[in-house]
């Protein structure tokens, strides 16, 4: 009697054909992201590896050396698909449609021997389930890498210190302020104050979605540190709802200069440094006089 591996080996082309059919018939197939030839090549590689591993009689542990090629290929495919923007369903369907085709072929071949068929299906089912778990693991890991990289990028680009005028720095804060970010913001700001010798720093919080007592505390800390360095700090961009929250929470910002907009903060900064912006007579570019 033929062993499972032999039966599968004999029907390799049929399995591949059925598998390809299954994959291609799936309405959600993204032929815009991957060509059919590429899919065929990947599938053949994967099936070859799988059959070789099954021939060694290993149905349980997909982390054994026989499965190395299969798992490698699968990880490769999953991670590429995660990066290319495939949905989890599409990625999962890849292994699950293989299961379907293998089982279909087995059913055809073992019509007379149901007990062997049952055993074989159970084994293969188990094996392919394990492989699909691996697919999801890798897929999600790939996605998480993307998310982590984006988080890093966001925190890097979101704390620029801008020199708006000689001796005046502005720091637009975008996104939620947590302890870690406050630390970065504070360090950047203080270092920039030292580098440029600025007297005034404007913290613009129009991009901060919500201010709670913790965020307010972080802001107060930043302002205090700036003051210790010998510079003045103005907080601007306080929206109506933020002002309401601050008052309702009973946060005392009376020691801090606050302005509604960056423009008025800049105006205040000019008057603090005895600067004045005037319109010139001949309506040329505005000139600054001391």
């Amino acid at each position: 009697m033929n062993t499972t591996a032999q039966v599968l080996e004999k029907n390799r082309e049929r399995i591949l054909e059925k598998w390809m059919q299954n994959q291609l018939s799936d309405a959600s197939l993204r032929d815009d992201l991957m060509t059919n030839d590429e899919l065929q090549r990947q599938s053949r590689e994967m099936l070859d590896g799988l059959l070789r591993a099954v021939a060694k009689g290993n149905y349980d542990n997909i982390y054994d050396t026989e499965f190395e090629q299969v798992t490698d290929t699968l990880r490769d495919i999953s991670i590429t698909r995660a990066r290319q923007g495939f949905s989890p369903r599409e990625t999962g369907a890849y292994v699950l449609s293989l299961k379907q085709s293998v089982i279909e072929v087995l059913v055809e071949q073992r019509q007379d021997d149901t007990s062997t068929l049952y055993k074989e299906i159970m084994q293969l089912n188990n094996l392919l389930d394990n492989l699909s778990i691996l697919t999801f693991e890798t897929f999600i890991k790939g996605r998480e890498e993307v998310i982590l990289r984006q988080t890093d990028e966001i925190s890097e680009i979101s704390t620029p210190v801008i020199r708006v005028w000689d001796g005046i720095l502005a720091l637009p804060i975008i996104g939620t302020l947590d302890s870690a970010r406050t630390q970065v913001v504070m360090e950047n700001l203080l270092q920039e104050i030292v580098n440029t010798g600025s007297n005034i720093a404007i913290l613009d919080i129009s991009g901060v979605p919500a201010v709670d007592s913790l965020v307010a505390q972080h802001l107060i800390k930043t302002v205090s540190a700036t003051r210790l360095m010998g510079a003045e700090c103005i907080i601007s961009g306080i929206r109506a709802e933020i002002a309401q929250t601050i008052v309702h929470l009973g946060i005392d910002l009376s020691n801090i200069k606050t302005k509604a907009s960056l423009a008025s903060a800049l105006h205040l900064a000019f008057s603090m440094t005895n600067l004045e912006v005037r319109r010139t007579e001949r309506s040329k570019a505005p000139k600054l006089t001391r």
Partner: protein
Amino acid sequence: MERIPILKMGPFLLVTIQIDLYDRLALTLENDLINMVSQTGARGVLIDISTVSIVDSFMGRILGNIASMSRIMDAETVVVGMQPAVAITLVELGLTLQGVYTALNVEKGMELLNTKLGDNLELDDEEEEDQDDRND
């Protein structure tokens, strides 16, 4: 015993701390400085801590004490050149040095002292003339 020199510059006293302050040295400095203020009748004290990289709560308190004592003796205190890391540490310790003036460097600190005390000093008139010149 080590001592931190206190320099007299016109109506001001200038202290540059160039070594790490340990507690005894800080206490000695506080003592010496207040004595100098009373001896010279200085109107302003400028403390440069630009080379100090480590501070603790004691040091923060000493700075606060010096400022309060000087104010009683009619002298303003300006701490200049605090490093970012030091500023962050002090804020984390909850010491915001209320009542102490701060400036970025010695030059700006001197300017600040001059403007704070400007009303009572002879320099006043000259300074205003300078500003007038610049306006022209």
